[in-house]
């Protein structure tokens, strides 16, 4: 169990995170917030790259900073800006990371083969990474986070640069991994979390706004979400959230405090996580 207790982080007088309290147990947690809300700062503190200005983070009751290499040994981390050495192949890079994670050489090679297969890079295992696309590099990043068979996986914007097929593959990988470990993903891409996250943590104004299941978050908008043709004027208590394209027709997706009368043109729709995101963070 990972607990974040009264954690505050300040940079040069600016409070980025204030009195954050969270508990993580086995499963997938999605950290959802716009850019600049403090997601990466929290992820870096969980990965011991930054220290809290106040409060503490504990793994099974023990401070993670005090645990030092014992904590990093159970951690797999993919940073937002994953870096690599261009003139090395994924196999060479993963061998290096495996050595840094204390994985024995004989075991490392088998694990690397399996992970390269998992992320779909077996065919290019020995090609230099400078020839890779952004998505391929990101997949190497995911593989290196898994090399130590971590109990805690921290992935900061893991689907950045992945095409839709790769994102589906990624979601399947995470779903399989979450059975017996804690997975914490941070993203501002709502659809990445909707199907795999057991709990969504939303940050606003440096604090935790919500920590709940996607269904509970969406349920608050139940009965208030409508779709109508684009261009129709909005009434009192109505808010435009987004526009969706159906073939040649553009329809606007709105939130309405008061129920509307359904018609051919105006239809009630089920709320999704993106609606909740836009409601909470929209201006």
């Amino acid at each position, binding site marked *: 169990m990972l607990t974040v207790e*009264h954690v505050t982080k300040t940079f040069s007088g600016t409070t980025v995170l204030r009195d954050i309290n969270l508990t993580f147990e086995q499963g997938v947690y999605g950290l959802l917030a716009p850019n600049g809300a403090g997601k990466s700062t929290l992820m*870096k503190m969980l*990965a*011991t*790259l930054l*220290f*809290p200005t*106040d*409060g503490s983070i504990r793994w099974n009751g023990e401070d993670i*900073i*005090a645990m*030092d*290499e014992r904590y*990093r*040994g159970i*951690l797999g*981390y993919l*940073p937002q*800006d*994953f*870096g*690599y*050495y*261009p003139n*090395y192949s994924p196999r060479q890079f993963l061998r*290096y*990371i495996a*050595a*840094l*994670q*204390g994985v024995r050489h004989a075991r490392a090679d088998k694990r690397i083969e399996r992970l390269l297969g998992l992320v779909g890079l077996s065919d290019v295992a020995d090609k230099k990474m400078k020839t890779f696309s952004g998505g391929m590099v990101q997949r190497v*990043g995911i593989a*290196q986070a898994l090399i*130590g068979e971590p109990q805690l996986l921290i992935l900061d914007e893991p689907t950045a640069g992945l095409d839709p097929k790769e994102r589906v593959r990624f979601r399947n990988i995470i779903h399989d991994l979450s059975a017996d470990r804690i997975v914490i993903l941070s993203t501002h891409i709502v659809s990445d979390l909707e199907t795999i996250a057991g709990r969504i943590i939303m940050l606003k104004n440096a604090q935790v706004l919500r920590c709940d299941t996607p269904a509970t978050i969406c349920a608050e908008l139940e009965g208030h979400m409508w779709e109508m043709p684009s261009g129709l004027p909005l009434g009192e208590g109505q808010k435009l959230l987004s526009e969706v394209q159906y073939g040649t027709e553009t329809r606007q997706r709105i939130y309405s405090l008061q129920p509307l009368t359904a018609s051919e043109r105006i239809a009630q729709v089920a709320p999704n996580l993106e609606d909740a995101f836009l409601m909470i963070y929209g201006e």
Partner: protein
Amino acid sequence: MNANDERIPYPDSAKRNASIGMIVVRGMPQRAGLVASVTDVVRALGIRNLFFGVWDCVFVGLIGAACVWGLMFVGAGGSSLWSDVGLGRFCVLMFLVSPFLYECVHLLIMFKERDCHTLDVLRACKWSFRRIAAVRMLTFGAVSVVLDTACGIGIALMISARVSAMTILGVSFSSLFLFALGQLAVDAHCSWPVSAAIMPAVWLLVSVAGWWFAAELVVWLERLPSLVCLGIGIAAGILYCASLNRYGAASLAKASYRARGEHGQALRPAF
């Protein structure tokens, strides 16, 4: 207390404190020394992985050092060294050039790790990247010592017996280890890229000052016993190794974090 309790021979406070002290000492993990750290890192990672991804920086540093020392050898053959000013200025150049390999490789590696954005991944790994960095610094510090020794003795043989080989080595080692110590302190207290510029700037300023007072410098060096000069260099080396051991074991921010009490307030300044 009942009558039975009065018969139990409780230890006095001196014995009790001694027992507690022994339990604490045996229970606390021993801090790994520098030699143990080096052995552990090299055994776990191997030499190849110690400089994984940055061998090109090592190569460029070695080429640069070869060029710089080559120029020093060319200068050592010149007739200007027969005068006090000429010899003094040459000693200043020795002082300036001695940490070149160390600093060049150090800066190139730091620049490359940042340019490749690999630091976050490396710092989150089980093996402390700080320890690996310390072993790296020790390794190319050792290579620098070998290079400085070979070049120092070669140059001393070329410029005759006015300034002895031990004095030349003393100047060289003092410069290398004091520079390395300073760089360690700057890395611990300043952030990149400022930390990259401070020590080279300081060394340049000291060398410019030495250049102006070159004649007086030679007279002073001739008066200083060569064994003392070499001893100063070796003492600087020992101090550097001790500082490197502390650098590899803990970080400034971690020390400050651990100093905070239960309610989060700082109990003592970071340093």
